[in-house]
Protein backbone atom coordinates (compact mmCIF):
# COMPACT_ATOMS: atom_id res chain seq x y z
CA UNK A 1 0.00 0.00 0.00
CA UNK A 2 2.70 2.44 1.03
CA UNK A 3 6.30 2.05 0.01
CA UNK A 4 9.43 4.09 0.51
CA UNK A 5 12.22 3.30 -1.95
CA UNK A 6 15.61 4.75 -1.05
CA UNK A 7 13.79 7.80 0.19
CA UNK A 8 15.70 10.78 1.54
CA UNK A 9 13.66 13.59 2.99
CA UNK A 10 14.88 17.16 3.32
CA UNK A 11 13.32 20.14 4.98
CA UNK A 12 14.75 23.23 3.36
CA UNK A 13 18.06 21.56 2.36
CA UNK A 14 18.49 19.93 5.77
CA UNK A 15 18.47 16.14 5.43
CA UNK A 16 16.07 14.73 8.03
CA UNK A 17 15.47 11.16 6.86
CA UNK A 18 17.96 8.94 5.10
CA UNK A 19 17.60 5.88 2.92
CA UNK A 20 14.13 4.76 3.93
CA UNK A 21 13.22 1.36 2.51
CA UNK A 22 9.89 0.34 3.95
CA UNK A 23 6.92 -1.51 2.52
CA UNK A 24 3.56 -1.51 4.25
CA UNK A 25 0.84 -3.83 3.03
CA UNK A 26 -2.88 -3.04 2.68
CA UNK A 27 -4.90 -3.51 5.87
CA UNK A 28 -1.80 -3.45 8.05
CA UNK A 29 -1.74 -1.48 11.28
CA UNK A 30 1.75 -0.20 11.86
CA UNK A 31 3.23 1.57 14.84
CA UNK A 32 5.99 4.02 14.03
CA UNK A 33 7.95 4.50 17.23
CA UNK A 34 10.65 7.02 17.89
CA UNK A 35 11.85 9.62 20.33
CA UNK A 36 11.02 13.28 19.99
CA UNK A 37 12.82 14.64 16.97
CA UNK A 38 13.48 11.20 15.52
CA UNK A 39 11.60 12.02 12.31
CA UNK A 40 8.12 10.52 12.74
CA UNK A 41 6.24 13.64 11.75
CA UNK A 42 8.61 14.26 8.86
CA UNK A 43 7.96 10.74 7.57
CA UNK A 44 4.21 11.33 7.48
CA UNK A 45 4.57 14.83 6.03
CA UNK A 46 6.70 13.45 3.22
CA UNK A 47 3.83 11.19 2.20
CA UNK A 48 1.54 14.24 2.15
CA UNK A 49 3.97 16.07 -0.12
CA UNK A 50 5.04 18.75 2.35
CA UNK A 51 8.77 18.07 2.13
CA UNK A 52 11.48 17.68 -0.48
CA UNK A 53 11.96 14.03 -1.29
CA UNK A 54 14.73 12.15 -3.08
CA UNK A 55 14.09 8.56 -4.05
CA UNK A 56 10.51 7.37 -4.34
CA UNK A 57 7.28 7.16 -2.40
CA UNK A 58 4.61 4.85 -3.79
CA UNK A 59 0.95 4.44 -2.94
CA UNK A 60 -0.61 1.23 -4.17
CA UNK A 61 2.26 0.85 -6.62
CA UNK A 62 1.84 4.34 -8.03
CA UNK A 63 4.83 6.67 -7.72
CA UNK A 64 3.51 9.82 -6.04
CA UNK A 65 6.87 11.45 -5.37
CA UNK A 66 6.18 14.28 -7.80
CA UNK A 67 2.43 14.50 -7.29
CA UNK A 68 1.07 17.82 -6.05
CA UNK A 69 0.30 17.79 -2.33
CA UNK A 70 -3.27 18.90 -2.94
CA UNK A 71 -4.03 15.82 -5.07
CA UNK A 72 -2.76 13.26 -2.59
CA UNK A 73 -5.66 13.13 -0.10
CA UNK A 74 -7.89 12.36 -3.08
CA UNK A 75 -6.03 9.07 -3.50
CA UNK A 76 -7.65 7.96 -0.25
CA UNK A 77 -5.14 9.32 2.25
CA UNK A 78 -6.28 10.68 5.58
CA UNK A 79 -3.81 12.48 7.82
CA UNK A 80 -4.38 13.61 11.37
CA UNK A 81 -1.47 15.94 12.20
CA UNK A 82 0.32 16.03 15.50
CA UNK A 83 -1.75 18.65 17.28
CA UNK A 84 -5.42 18.60 16.50
CA UNK A 85 -5.16 21.38 13.92
CA UNK A 86 -8.95 21.71 13.58
CA UNK A 87 -10.59 24.68 11.89
CA UNK A 88 -11.90 26.39 14.99
CA UNK A 89 -14.49 28.60 13.29
CA UNK A 90 -16.27 25.62 11.71
CA UNK A 91 -18.45 23.21 13.61
CA UNK A 92 -17.27 19.72 14.41
CA UNK A 93 -19.33 18.28 11.56
CA UNK A 94 -18.15 20.93 9.11
CA UNK A 95 -14.58 19.97 9.97
CA UNK A 96 -15.35 16.34 9.22
CA UNK A 97 -17.21 17.10 5.99
CA UNK A 98 -14.77 19.61 4.53
CA UNK A 99 -12.29 17.10 3.05
CA UNK A 100 -15.16 15.43 1.19
CA UNK A 101 -16.34 18.76 -0.18
CA UNK A 102 -12.81 19.69 -1.22
CA UNK A 103 -12.43 16.37 -3.03
CA UNK A 104 -15.85 17.00 -4.67
CA UNK A 105 -17.17 13.59 -3.63
CA UNK A 106 -20.75 13.14 -4.79
CA UNK A 107 -23.37 13.78 -2.10
CA UNK A 108 -24.20 10.09 -1.59
CA UNK A 109 -20.60 9.21 -0.99
CA UNK A 110 -20.24 12.16 1.36
CA UNK A 111 -23.25 11.03 3.35
CA UNK A 112 -21.99 7.45 3.47
CA UNK A 113 -18.57 8.57 4.65
CA UNK A 114 -20.05 10.80 7.32
CA UNK A 115 -22.13 7.86 8.46
CA UNK A 116 -19.00 5.75 8.67
CA UNK A 117 -17.26 8.41 10.75
CA UNK A 118 -20.15 8.41 13.22
CA UNK A 119 -20.14 4.63 13.41
CA UNK A 120 -16.44 4.67 14.31
CA UNK A 121 -16.79 7.71 16.58
CA UNK A 122 -20.40 7.76 17.86
CA UNK A 123 -19.57 10.35 20.51
CA UNK A 124 -19.01 12.96 17.80
CA UNK A 125 -22.71 12.96 16.97
CA UNK A 126 -23.63 14.86 20.13
CA UNK A 127 -21.09 17.57 19.48
CA UNK A 128 -21.66 17.81 15.75
CA UNK A 129 -22.94 21.38 15.87
CA UNK A 130 -20.45 22.75 18.38
CA UNK A 131 -17.67 25.00 17.11
CA UNK A 132 -14.51 22.94 16.83
CA UNK A 133 -12.71 25.64 18.76
CA UNK A 134 -14.90 24.89 21.76
CA UNK A 135 -14.31 21.15 22.19
CA UNK A 136 -11.78 19.83 24.68
CA UNK A 137 -8.33 18.69 23.65
CA UNK A 138 -9.23 15.02 23.85
CA UNK A 139 -12.47 15.42 21.95
CA UNK A 140 -10.54 17.42 19.39
CA UNK A 141 -8.35 14.39 18.74
CA UNK A 142 -11.48 12.40 17.94
CA UNK A 143 -12.66 15.11 15.58
CA UNK A 144 -9.27 15.14 13.88
CA UNK A 145 -9.55 11.36 13.45
CA UNK A 146 -13.04 11.78 12.01
CA UNK A 147 -11.80 14.39 9.56
CA UNK A 148 -8.98 12.09 8.48
CA UNK A 149 -11.46 9.23 7.98
CA UNK A 150 -13.43 11.28 5.46
CA UNK A 151 -10.86 10.69 2.74
CA UNK A 152 -8.64 8.11 4.41
CA UNK A 153 -10.14 5.01 2.87
CA UNK A 154 -6.82 3.49 1.81
CA UNK A 155 -4.23 4.99 4.11
CA UNK A 156 -4.72 6.61 7.48
CA UNK A 157 -1.80 8.37 9.13
CA UNK A 158 -2.23 9.43 12.76
CA UNK A 159 0.58 11.46 14.27
CA UNK A 160 0.92 10.84 18.02
CA UNK A 161 -2.82 10.72 18.64
CA UNK A 162 -2.31 9.52 22.23
CA UNK A 163 -0.05 12.43 23.13
CA UNK A 164 -1.64 14.31 26.02
CA UNK A 165 -4.79 12.15 26.17
CA UNK A 166 -6.08 11.25 29.62
CA UNK A 167 -6.03 7.45 30.12
CA UNK A 168 -9.82 7.15 29.81
CA UNK A 169 -9.82 9.07 26.54
CA UNK A 170 -6.82 7.15 25.24
CA UNK A 171 -8.80 4.01 25.90
CA UNK A 172 -11.78 5.35 23.93
CA UNK A 173 -9.51 6.41 21.09
CA UNK A 174 -8.05 2.90 20.97
CA UNK A 175 -11.55 1.43 20.92
CA UNK A 176 -12.45 3.70 18.02
CA UNK A 177 -9.50 2.37 16.07
CA UNK A 178 -10.77 -1.12 16.88
CA UNK A 179 -14.20 -0.24 15.45
CA UNK A 180 -12.51 1.21 12.39
CA UNK A 181 -10.90 -2.19 11.74
CA UNK A 182 -14.38 -3.76 11.73
CA UNK A 183 -16.01 -1.07 9.60
CA UNK A 184 -13.12 -0.76 7.19
CA UNK A 185 -10.87 -3.84 7.28
CA UNK A 186 -8.88 -2.83 4.20
CA UNK A 187 -7.48 0.49 5.28
CA UNK A 188 -3.79 0.76 6.15
CA UNK A 189 -3.18 2.55 9.42
CA UNK A 190 0.06 4.14 10.58
CA UNK A 191 0.19 5.46 14.12
CA UNK A 192 3.23 7.24 15.51
CA UNK A 193 4.11 7.29 19.17
CA UNK A 194 7.09 7.91 21.38
CA UNK A 195 5.93 5.42 23.97
CA UNK A 196 5.78 1.92 22.39
CA UNK A 197 3.71 0.43 25.22
CA UNK A 198 0.67 2.46 24.19
CA UNK A 199 0.35 0.83 20.77
CA UNK A 200 1.09 -2.78 21.73
CA UNK A 201 -2.57 -3.71 21.90
CA UNK A 202 -3.52 -3.06 18.32
CA UNK A 203 -0.45 -2.61 16.11
CA UNK A 204 0.77 -5.88 14.66
CA UNK A 205 3.94 -4.43 13.29
CA UNK A 206 6.28 -1.94 14.85
CA UNK A 207 8.79 0.20 13.01
CA UNK A 208 11.41 2.07 14.96
CA UNK A 209 12.75 5.36 13.73
CA UNK A 210 16.04 6.62 15.06
CA UNK A 211 18.21 9.46 13.84
CA UNK A 212 16.42 9.60 10.53
CA UNK A 213 16.52 5.91 9.77
CA UNK A 214 13.67 3.43 10.01
CA UNK A 215 14.15 -0.19 11.04
CA UNK A 216 11.88 -3.12 11.78
CA UNK A 217 11.44 -3.64 15.52
CA UNK A 218 13.31 -6.69 16.68
CA UNK A 219 10.54 -8.04 18.82
CA UNK A 220 7.19 -8.08 17.12
CA UNK A 221 4.23 -7.45 19.36
CA UNK A 222 2.40 -10.63 20.22
Amino acid sequence: MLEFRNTDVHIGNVPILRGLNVKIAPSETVALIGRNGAGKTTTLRSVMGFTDVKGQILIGGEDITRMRASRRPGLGIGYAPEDRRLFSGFTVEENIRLPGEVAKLDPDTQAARLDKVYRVLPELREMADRPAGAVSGGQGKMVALGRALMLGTRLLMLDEPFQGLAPALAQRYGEALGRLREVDPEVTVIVTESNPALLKSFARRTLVIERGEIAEAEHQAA
Partner: protein
Amino acid sequence: MNLSLILLAVFDGVSYAALVFMVAVGLTLIFGVLRILNVAHGSLYAIGAYLTASIGGAVVAAGYSPILAFPLMLIAAALVGVLLGAPIERLLLRRIYAKSEVLQLLVTFAVFMILEDVQRLVWGNQPYFESSALQLLGNIQVFGVYYTSYQLVLLPVVALLTLIGLRLFLRRTLTGKLITAVTEDREAARSIGIDADRVYLMTFVLGAALAGLGGALASPTTSVLPGIGAEMIVLSFAVVATAGLGRIEGAAVAALLIGLGRSAATYAMPELQVLVPYLIMLAVLLVRPEGLFGTPAARKI
Protein backbone atom coordinates in the same frame (compact mmCIF):
# COMPACT_ATOMS: atom_id res chain seq x y z
CA MET B 1 -19.13 74.43 17.98
CA ASN B 2 -22.63 74.19 16.51
CA LEU B 3 -24.69 71.14 15.73
CA SER B 4 -24.51 71.36 11.97
CA LEU B 5 -20.71 71.42 12.10
CA ILE B 6 -20.73 68.33 14.27
CA LEU B 7 -23.12 66.62 11.87
CA LEU B 8 -20.91 67.53 8.94
CA ALA B 9 -17.91 66.09 10.72
CA VAL B 10 -19.79 62.86 11.43
CA PHE B 11 -20.97 62.58 7.82
CA ASP B 12 -17.47 63.22 6.48
CA GLY B 13 -16.13 60.63 8.86
CA VAL B 14 -18.68 57.97 7.98
CA SER B 15 -18.32 58.36 4.23
CA TYR B 16 -14.55 58.37 4.43
CA ALA B 17 -14.60 55.37 6.75
CA ALA B 18 -16.64 53.47 4.16
CA LEU B 19 -13.94 54.04 1.54
CA VAL B 20 -11.07 53.21 3.85
CA PHE B 21 -12.87 50.04 4.90
CA MET B 22 -13.16 48.83 1.30
CA VAL B 23 -9.40 49.06 0.94
CA ALA B 24 -8.47 47.88 4.43
CA VAL B 25 -10.70 44.81 4.30
CA GLY B 26 -8.94 43.56 1.17
CA LEU B 27 -5.60 44.21 2.79
CA THR B 28 -6.52 42.29 5.91
CA LEU B 29 -8.06 39.42 3.92
CA ILE B 30 -4.86 39.06 1.91
CA PHE B 31 -2.76 39.22 5.04
CA GLY B 32 -4.88 36.53 6.68
CA VAL B 33 -4.21 34.05 3.91
CA LEU B 34 -0.84 35.02 2.42
CA ARG B 35 0.72 36.48 5.59
CA ILE B 36 2.02 39.32 3.49
CA LEU B 37 1.39 43.01 4.09
CA ASN B 38 0.83 44.18 0.56
CA VAL B 39 2.07 47.75 0.17
CA ALA B 40 1.06 47.68 -3.50
CA HIS B 41 -2.54 47.55 -2.30
CA GLY B 42 -2.49 51.36 -2.32
CA SER B 43 -1.62 51.38 -6.02
CA LEU B 44 -4.50 49.06 -6.79
CA TYR B 45 -6.80 51.54 -5.08
CA ALA B 46 -5.33 54.42 -7.08
CA ILE B 47 -5.58 52.57 -10.38
CA GLY B 48 -9.22 51.71 -9.66
CA ALA B 49 -9.82 55.43 -9.17
CA TYR B 50 -7.89 56.45 -12.30
CA LEU B 51 -9.66 53.89 -14.47
CA THR B 52 -13.09 55.01 -13.30
CA ALA B 53 -12.39 58.74 -13.52
CA SER B 54 -10.69 58.66 -16.92
CA ILE B 55 -13.00 56.21 -18.67
CA GLY B 56 -16.04 57.69 -16.91
CA GLY B 57 -15.03 61.14 -18.07
CA ALA B 58 -14.64 59.94 -21.63
CA VAL B 59 -18.00 58.14 -21.53
CA VAL B 60 -19.82 61.20 -20.23
CA ALA B 61 -17.98 63.51 -22.65
CA ALA B 62 -19.10 61.29 -25.52
CA GLY B 63 -22.67 61.99 -24.48
CA TYR B 64 -23.57 58.71 -22.81
CA SER B 65 -25.62 58.59 -19.63
CA PRO B 66 -23.66 59.25 -16.42
CA ILE B 67 -25.47 56.29 -14.92
CA LEU B 68 -22.92 54.15 -16.74
CA ALA B 69 -20.45 55.30 -14.07
CA PHE B 70 -21.84 52.65 -11.72
CA PRO B 71 -21.31 49.56 -13.85
CA LEU B 72 -17.99 51.09 -14.84
CA MET B 73 -16.90 51.00 -11.19
CA LEU B 74 -17.52 47.27 -11.02
CA ILE B 75 -15.66 46.75 -14.28
CA ALA B 76 -12.72 48.79 -13.02
CA ALA B 77 -12.63 46.69 -9.84
CA ALA B 78 -12.69 43.46 -11.82
CA LEU B 79 -9.95 44.72 -14.13
CA VAL B 80 -7.74 45.62 -11.19
CA GLY B 81 -8.33 42.21 -9.61
CA VAL B 82 -7.74 40.14 -12.72
CA LEU B 83 -5.24 42.15 -14.77
CA LEU B 84 -3.10 43.38 -11.87
CA GLY B 85 -3.91 41.19 -8.86
CA ALA B 86 -3.55 37.84 -10.61
CA PRO B 87 -0.14 38.47 -12.21
CA ILE B 88 1.26 40.10 -9.06
CA GLU B 89 0.40 37.00 -7.03
CA ARG B 90 1.35 34.41 -9.61
CA LEU B 91 4.56 35.89 -10.92
CA LEU B 92 5.92 37.67 -7.89
CA LEU B 93 4.46 36.92 -4.49
CA ARG B 94 4.35 33.18 -5.14
CA ARG B 95 8.15 33.18 -5.20
CA ILE B 96 8.56 34.82 -1.82
CA TYR B 97 6.09 33.11 0.53
CA ALA B 98 8.91 31.21 2.22
CA LYS B 99 11.16 34.27 2.43
CA SER B 100 11.61 36.68 5.33
CA GLU B 101 8.99 39.28 6.11
CA VAL B 102 11.43 42.10 5.41
CA LEU B 103 12.03 40.82 1.90
CA GLN B 104 8.28 40.38 1.35
CA LEU B 105 7.66 43.96 2.42
CA LEU B 106 10.43 45.21 0.14
CA VAL B 107 9.03 43.32 -2.82
CA THR B 108 5.51 44.66 -2.40
CA PHE B 109 6.99 48.12 -1.85
CA ALA B 110 8.88 47.73 -5.14
CA VAL B 111 5.62 46.78 -6.86
CA PHE B 112 4.05 49.87 -5.34
CA MET B 113 6.84 52.10 -6.73
CA ILE B 114 6.59 50.51 -10.17
CA LEU B 115 2.83 50.97 -10.25
CA GLU B 116 3.21 54.61 -9.16
CA ASP B 117 5.37 55.20 -12.23
CA VAL B 118 2.95 53.29 -14.42
CA GLN B 119 0.19 55.63 -13.24
CA ARG B 120 2.23 58.69 -14.16
CA LEU B 121 3.02 57.19 -17.54
CA VAL B 122 -0.59 56.39 -18.34
CA TRP B 123 -2.44 59.25 -16.69
CA GLY B 124 0.22 61.95 -16.33
CA ASN B 125 0.44 64.38 -13.43
CA GLN B 126 -2.76 66.32 -13.96
CA PRO B 127 -5.72 65.55 -11.71
CA TYR B 128 -8.82 63.78 -12.99
CA PHE B 129 -12.16 64.78 -11.61
CA GLU B 130 -15.32 63.05 -12.73
CA SER B 131 -18.22 63.37 -10.31
CA SER B 132 -21.30 62.70 -12.41
CA ALA B 133 -22.10 59.60 -10.35
CA LEU B 134 -22.16 61.74 -7.24
CA GLN B 135 -24.26 64.48 -8.83
CA LEU B 136 -26.68 61.95 -10.25
CA LEU B 137 -27.81 60.87 -6.77
CA GLY B 138 -28.32 64.42 -5.51
CA ASN B 139 -28.34 65.64 -1.92
CA ILE B 140 -30.25 64.64 1.15
CA GLN B 141 -31.09 66.79 4.12
CA VAL B 142 -30.50 65.52 7.65
CA PHE B 143 -31.38 67.84 10.57
CA GLY B 144 -31.02 70.81 8.32
CA VAL B 145 -27.65 69.76 6.93
CA TYR B 146 -27.33 68.98 3.24
CA TYR B 147 -25.00 66.21 2.22
CA THR B 148 -24.56 64.15 -0.96
CA SER B 149 -26.57 60.92 -1.00
CA TYR B 150 -23.64 59.28 -2.73
CA GLN B 151 -21.37 59.80 0.26
CA LEU B 152 -23.87 59.57 3.06
CA VAL B 153 -26.00 56.66 1.80
CA LEU B 154 -24.41 54.82 -1.11
CA LEU B 155 -20.86 54.51 0.25
CA PRO B 156 -21.85 53.27 3.73
CA VAL B 157 -24.41 50.89 2.23
CA VAL B 158 -21.85 49.45 -0.18
CA ALA B 159 -19.35 49.06 2.65
CA LEU B 160 -21.93 47.35 4.84
CA LEU B 161 -23.00 45.03 2.02
CA THR B 162 -19.35 44.22 1.40
CA LEU B 163 -18.88 43.34 5.05
CA ILE B 164 -21.99 41.15 5.18
CA GLY B 165 -21.35 39.63 1.77
CA LEU B 166 -17.77 38.80 2.63
CA ARG B 167 -18.81 37.18 5.88
CA LEU B 168 -21.48 35.08 4.16
CA PHE B 169 -19.07 34.21 1.36
CA LEU B 170 -16.41 33.04 3.79
CA ARG B 171 -18.89 31.14 5.92
CA ARG B 172 -21.25 29.60 3.38
CA THR B 173 -19.54 29.00 0.05
CA LEU B 174 -16.99 26.29 -0.57
CA THR B 175 -14.45 28.80 -1.91
CA GLY B 176 -14.99 30.92 1.18
CA LYS B 177 -14.52 27.91 3.44
CA LEU B 178 -11.27 27.09 1.68
CA ILE B 179 -10.05 30.65 2.28
CA THR B 180 -11.08 30.45 5.93
CA ALA B 181 -9.36 27.10 6.35
CA VAL B 182 -6.10 28.27 4.77
CA THR B 183 -6.22 31.43 6.88
CA GLU B 184 -6.45 29.43 10.05
CA ASP B 185 -3.94 26.69 9.30
CA ARG B 186 -2.14 26.40 5.99
CA GLU B 187 -0.77 22.92 6.53
CA ALA B 188 -3.94 21.47 8.01
CA ALA B 189 -5.75 22.84 4.96
CA ARG B 190 -3.27 21.26 2.58
CA SER B 191 -3.51 17.97 4.42
CA ILE B 192 -7.19 17.67 3.55
CA GLY B 193 -6.48 18.33 -0.10
CA ILE B 194 -6.99 22.08 -0.33
CA ASP B 195 -4.93 23.55 -3.14
CA ALA B 196 -3.32 26.38 -1.19
CA ASP B 197 -1.83 27.94 -4.35
CA ARG B 198 -5.27 28.38 -5.85
CA VAL B 199 -6.64 29.80 -2.61
CA TYR B 200 -3.79 32.33 -2.49
CA LEU B 201 -4.55 33.42 -6.03
CA MET B 202 -8.30 33.73 -5.46
CA THR B 203 -7.78 35.64 -2.23
CA PHE B 204 -5.34 38.05 -3.77
CA VAL B 205 -7.57 38.69 -6.78
CA LEU B 206 -10.53 39.27 -4.47
CA GLY B 207 -8.56 41.59 -2.20
CA ALA B 208 -7.15 43.50 -5.17
CA ALA B 209 -10.61 43.89 -6.67
CA LEU B 210 -11.86 45.30 -3.36
CA ALA B 211 -9.04 47.85 -3.41
CA GLY B 212 -9.93 48.70 -7.00
CA LEU B 213 -13.58 49.05 -6.06
CA GLY B 214 -12.60 51.33 -3.18
CA GLY B 215 -10.73 53.55 -5.63
CA ALA B 216 -13.57 53.46 -8.12
CA LEU B 217 -16.06 54.48 -5.43
CA ALA B 218 -13.76 57.20 -4.16
CA SER B 219 -13.17 58.76 -7.58
CA PRO B 220 -16.37 60.87 -7.78
CA THR B 221 -15.64 62.36 -4.35
CA THR B 222 -12.12 63.59 -4.93
CA SER B 223 -9.54 64.63 -7.49
CA VAL B 224 -7.62 61.63 -8.69
CA LEU B 225 -3.95 62.58 -8.75
CA PRO B 226 -0.53 61.12 -7.95
CA GLY B 227 -0.09 60.27 -4.29
CA ILE B 228 -3.61 59.11 -3.45
CA GLY B 229 -2.41 55.50 -3.36
CA ALA B 230 0.29 56.28 -0.82
CA GLU B 231 -2.13 58.17 1.41
CA MET B 232 -4.65 55.34 1.29
CA ILE B 233 -2.23 52.51 1.98
CA VAL B 234 -0.86 54.25 5.06
CA LEU B 235 -4.37 54.84 6.38
CA SER B 236 -5.35 51.25 5.62
CA PHE B 237 -2.34 49.98 7.51
CA ALA B 238 -3.45 52.06 10.47
CA VAL B 239 -6.95 50.58 10.23
CA VAL B 240 -5.72 47.00 9.88
CA ALA B 241 -3.26 47.34 12.74
CA THR B 242 -5.86 48.99 14.96
CA ALA B 243 -8.37 46.25 14.20
CA GLY B 244 -5.97 43.35 14.59
CA LEU B 245 -4.39 41.75 11.53
CA GLY B 246 -6.77 39.55 9.58
CA ARG B 247 -9.93 40.81 11.30
CA ILE B 248 -12.77 41.68 8.93
CA GLU B 249 -15.41 43.03 11.32
CA GLY B 250 -12.61 44.68 13.25
CA ALA B 251 -11.54 46.52 10.11
CA ALA B 252 -15.04 48.00 9.84
CA VAL B 253 -15.00 49.25 13.43
CA ALA B 254 -11.46 50.57 13.17
CA ALA B 255 -12.24 52.30 9.86
CA LEU B 256 -15.17 54.04 11.49
CA LEU B 257 -13.08 55.03 14.50
CA ILE B 258 -10.28 56.39 12.38
CA GLY B 259 -12.60 58.01 9.83
CA LEU B 260 -14.52 59.83 12.56
CA GLY B 261 -11.37 60.79 14.41
CA ARG B 262 -9.84 62.16 11.25
CA SER B 263 -12.85 64.27 10.31
CA ALA B 264 -13.30 65.53 13.88
CA ALA B 265 -9.72 66.75 13.71
CA THR B 266 -10.39 68.38 10.33
CA TYR B 267 -13.02 70.59 11.92
CA ALA B 268 -11.57 71.06 15.39
CA MET B 269 -7.79 71.01 14.87
CA PRO B 270 -7.05 70.94 11.15
CA GLU B 271 -3.30 70.91 11.72
CA LEU B 272 -3.67 67.49 13.37
CA GLN B 273 -5.83 65.91 10.67
CA VAL B 274 -3.00 63.90 9.14
CA LEU B 275 -1.77 62.77 12.52
CA VAL B 276 -4.99 61.72 14.23
CA PRO B 277 -5.41 58.28 12.58
CA TYR B 278 -1.95 57.28 13.79
CA LEU B 279 -2.55 58.68 17.25
CA ILE B 280 -5.67 56.51 17.45
CA MET B 281 -3.69 53.53 16.22
CA LEU B 282 -0.93 54.20 18.73
CA ALA B 283 -3.35 54.61 21.59
CA VAL B 284 -5.03 51.31 20.74
CA LEU B 285 -1.80 49.39 20.20
CA LEU B 286 -0.32 50.67 23.47
CA VAL B 287 -3.25 49.18 25.36
CA ARG B 288 -3.78 46.15 23.11
CA PRO B 289 -0.70 45.34 21.04
CA GLU B 290 -2.66 42.70 19.12
CA GLY B 291 -5.25 45.27 18.04
CA LEU B 292 -8.85 45.80 19.09
CA PHE B 293 -10.08 42.43 17.84
CA GLY B 294 -6.87 40.47 17.50
CA THR B 295 -5.94 37.53 19.65
CA PRO B 296 -2.35 37.50 20.88
CA ALA B 297 -1.47 34.01 19.66
CA ALA B 298 -3.51 33.32 16.56
CA ARG B 299 -4.30 35.96 13.98
CA LYS B 300 -7.07 34.96 11.69
CA ILE B 301 -10.03 36.12 9.71
